[in-house]
Structures are given as C-alpha cells and as structure tokens.
C-alpha cells in the first residue's frame, strides 16, 4: 500500500474563453499523505477551487500528473473517473448541495445507489452514517426542514458513506455561523483522529489553524506550504515547498 493519498506533479490548468486565456493553475506540485488534514488558503481567484476540482476528478488538468491513492488518473475516461469519485472521494461544498426534494436518508444513500448497493443495505448504511453525524432522528426531513449546520452534517454523512480515501471540502463553513462552524470543525477533527485524509479550502485562518498543514496559493502557484502548530505536534513529515517559478 501507498502512503501518499494525493500526488500532484506540475499541474497546469488553463481556461480559454474566446481569445482570453486564464491560467488558473501554473504548475502546482503537492503531496498529501494518508491521514493528513490539510488546509488550502489563498486570496480570491488564486486557484483554490480549481485545484479542488482537479483533486476531486471533476476537472482534468491541462497538463501535469496526478496520482490518487496510487492510481494514475490521466489515462482514465469519464466512466472510470466517475467510479473514482464514487469510491475514493467524498465532497463537501459551501452550499451543501443536497438534493432539495429528497429526504436526508435518501440524500445520504445516493452514492450507494450509484455503487449498485441493494436498497435494504443502502437504508441501513445511510441510517448508520446519519447517526454518526448526530442526525439519527432527522432521516425523513427534507433539506429545507433542516438548519444549515444540519444540512452540512447530512452532506458530510453522504461524503463518508462510501468510506472514501479522501474527504474534500471547499469552504465548508462559509455559509455557517461561528457556533455551527465549530460543530462541523469538531466533526472534521474526530474524522481526522479516526484516520481520514481531509483537504479543506478556507478563507478563515481559524479554520486553517485546526488542520495539520496549510498550503497557500497565489496566482495559481503554491506560495507556501507549512505545518501548523498542531501539525508540528502530530509530527507530520512535510517538506515545505517553495513556489516554483513558471517557465
């Protein structure tokens, strides 16, 4: 088994809209080990979401190599990438992104539906996952009947249900007040203690402080990559990287 969960080498991402080219990522090299808790920070437009989309296999880099859990993703087609998303990745979004007309249990069990798990097992596992995030009694509530924090916990349960290798969260607390944010962060911490690999994009220094390591982006490049106080404590073996100038 490989200890590297995410291995990005010289990732470029260029958006073309008409004659204008936007270089969202300009050679990002980043390694994240299994069980690490990493925060990605940077000013607006620095490429954080783009990087998350690449890591999350929602988008392909224009160039560069990406290995997830030891698998080279550059050769995979849409169906195979969908399978990777299904089995290896869990997504948490700023806007929660739950199916609006569907109750919590069904939302949580949706990935199992695509994984072709039987309806009975789907129900049981979804119930267990909801219980894990403290929403055992909210299974039949629709998203509109839940608070923001509760919705985000449903989303986390959904992200976790397939037991993914990596949990990706793009500004998960961006829509939440500080108390609810604290709930979510506490949940992340317990997941981290349980050995999950977590990558969080955030604007909030306090959120970043909770991680082991902070990667700062600017203009599509890694500006700095440093362990936090916690990271030093937990003894993560991280080699800080310099921003690689672009050729």
């Amino acid at each position: 088994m490989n200890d590297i969960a995410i291995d990005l080498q010289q990732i470029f991402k260029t958006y073309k809209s008409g004659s204008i080219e936007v270089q969202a990522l300009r050679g990002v090299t980043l390694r994240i080990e299994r069980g690490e808790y990493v925060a990605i920070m940077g000013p607006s437009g620095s490429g954080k979401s783009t990087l998350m989309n690449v890591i999350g296999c929602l988008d392909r880099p224009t160039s560069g190599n990406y290995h997830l859990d030891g698998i080279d993703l550059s050769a995979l087609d849409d169906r195979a990438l969908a399978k990777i998303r299904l089995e290896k990745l869990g997504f948490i979004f700023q806007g929660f992104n739950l199916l609006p007309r569907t109750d919590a249990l069904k939302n949580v069990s949706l990935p199992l539906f695509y994984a072709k798990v039987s309806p009975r097992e789907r129900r049981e596992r979804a119930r267990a996952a909801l219980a894990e995030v403290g929403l055992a009694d909210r299974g039949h509530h629709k998203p509109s009947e839940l608070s923001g924090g509760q919705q985000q916990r449903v989303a986390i349960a959904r992200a976790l249900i397939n037991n993914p290798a990596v949990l990706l969260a793009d500004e998960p607390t961006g829509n939440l007040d500080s108390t609810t944010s604290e709930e979510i962060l506490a949940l992340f911490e317990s997941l981290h203690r349980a050995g999950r690999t977590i990558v969080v994009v955030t604007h909030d220094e306090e959120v970043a402080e909770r991680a082991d390591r902070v990667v700062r982006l600017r203009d599509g490049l890694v500006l700095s990559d440093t362990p936090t106080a916690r990271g030093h404590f937990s003894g993560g073996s991280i080699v800080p990287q310099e921003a690689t100038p672009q050729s």
Partner: protein
Amino acid sequence: MLDYMRETLELMQENLTRTILTLIGLVVGVAAIISIQVAAAGMAAAVNGAFRGININTFFLFPKSTQGSTQRANLGLSDLTLLERNVPGVETAIPFGQTRTIVSAGHQHVMLKFGGESYRRFSTAPVVAGHAISRTDVEQATPVCVLSSKAFSRLFPHAADPSTVLGQSVYVGPKRYVIVGVLGPATLSTASLGFDINNDVVIPYTTFYNDYQRGRPLFGIQVLGSRDATLATLEANSKRVLSQAHGGSIYQTFDFGFFTKQIDGFFGVVGTIVSAVGAISLLVAGIGIMNILFVSVSERTREIGIRRAIGASRATILIQFFVEAFVLAFSGSLVGMLAGLGIGELAQQLFIARISGTIAALPWMHAILLATLFATVVTLVFGTLPALRAASVDPIEALRYE
C-alpha cells in the same frame, strides 16, 4: 433501473398538473390510433363473416351496359354449358335472375325473393328438412322448390316442424311448386351489408328459365367456382370463352371482392384520417414530453451536478433521463391504449355487432406491444436531446455556488 423508475414516478407526482397536461396529447394520439385499429379489425371480421352466407367463390357475368347490349351479347342456356365444359374450375353456371314476387301457401301471401338454384349450391345455409334441388330436378326442370328458413316461417307460421311442409305446394301466380326441402338459417349473410344474394324460395334454374326467361337473352350469368380456383383467373377465362363464342369482348364480371374492396377502401380513408390525427397528436405529445424533459434538465442542473460529483458517470445520467422519458411516454401510451380499446369496443357494440352479430376479439396483446413501441419511439425521438443535454451538464458549472 427500478430505482430510476421509482424516482421518476415521485417526480411525476410532484409535478402532477404539468405531467397530466403533457400526457394528454399522447393519450389522445394513442387512443385514436388504437380505437381505429379495434374498429377496423371488428369491421373486417364482420365483412368476412357476412360473406360466409354464400359460397365466396361466386362471380357474376354481365354484358357491358351499353344500349342493346343484352341483345347483342345474346347469352343463352348453351353458354352455361359452354362455361361448365370449357372453363376449368367452373363448377356450375346458372342464369342470373332474382325477382321479388308474391308467393302464396294456403292463406299466406308473402313478398319474397324468388330465383333459380343449381344442384351445386350457391347458398351455404344447411338443409334441415328434405333435400336441396337435385341434379335430376335441374336436368328435367321439375316444378319443385326449396324454402329458406325465412320463407318457411313466413309462409307456414303455424307449422311446428319444417318436415311437415314437405310435399305441400306454394304458388307464384298460377304456377305451382312442390316443396322438397327447407333450409336452416345461414350463420351470416350479406343481408346485413344491405343486399342479399340468397333467395327465399329457389326452384331449379332450368325451371325458372322455362317459366320466366324463355325466349329472351339472359340478363346475366351467376358462376360458382371450385374451392381451389382463383376468381380472377376464372373470370378472365370465362370472358375469353364467351367472347370467342359470340365474337367481341363485351362481358364484364363482378365478385364479392368488389364489395369488400369498397368497404376496405372506406375504412382505409377513415383509418388514414384517424391515424393522421393520431400521428399529429403523437408529434405534439412528443414535443410536450421533450419540453418537460428540457425543463426538468434546466431545473435540475444543480442536481445533475451533485449526482455527477457524487459518482454518476455521463452514461448513468443519460440512462436516468431516458428512463424518465420512457416512464412518461409509457404511462401516456398505456392510458391511451386503454382508452382506445374502450372506444373501439364501444364502436363495435354500437355499430359492428349489429351487422355481424359478433364482436372481434380485442387485440390486447397487439395493443400492449403497440403502446410499448410508441413509448420506445417517443422516448428515442424526443428523449434523446434532453438526455444528451443532461449528460453534458458540467458538474463544476452546476455546483458553483452563487
């Protein structure tokens, strides 16, 4: 697949009004097409049934209708023999002649159809008493007659049994005919179509000729072909043989194909109109379904994005939308099919059953297959574009938070 269906059904419930409005067109279209199918099947059965009363391999030969053609054609009894001898497949030929006349028996005087018959019978009605016209009767032109069940009941309203009237006589004017046989009812007859080729009282055609047609050219000839003969060939050969004998091809023939063709033609026209209306409503319905799917795609762009992020491939989304299109199309087709069968059945009860006395079996299997076929075609034709659009939704765009 089942899960997709369940999900679609839930969505349909949530948008019930819109769904119903969309499906009305489909229901109307399918119902129109199915009902005309049922009615046409019933009509075909009725027409075929009607001709079972008479031997179907019958045709009629007449001089072409120009002035004095009967004289010029100059058909006579010798032509009957000519046809029987020289045209293979002709079983018998008799003079065409049917009159409506007063037939009397005792105190009963009844207006009946009266004509000649051969020992090879044109009618298919069973003999229930005595015997049919015999070969000897024809050869010797004996004054005997056979009554149809209608003639029997009208002339002898008090007779308990047909066999009791055998040996009694009926009168047509001064002429007297001894009853030698009585027929039962024909199962079905052309009478239901507005004309009846079968007579109520028949006498040997030779007797009929002697008593009513002697000295004049025949008006026409009625020919019975053997079971395995082809009518078209028989008719062509008969015309040729007569033309050679008399010089000049001035004969024309008619058979029941003529009538069935007329009826088929009528139903063809009606069927085409109804099918066209059906096809138009199907088209409108299909576009409606396409619209509901497009709306569904744009309303659910975010949802599609979520599903893709979670692990649904493009192919999975494509299938999901196809299933949705199919469920919509099939439920519409199914309702339309049931309505169509109902209307068709009603049409049969109201109109066709009166003619044929029977109702064609409803083509259920046919209808179900047809509904499935409609649904599949509608799904493929009108579901493909929305499904492709759904599958091409970019999850990143769809999920971007605003």
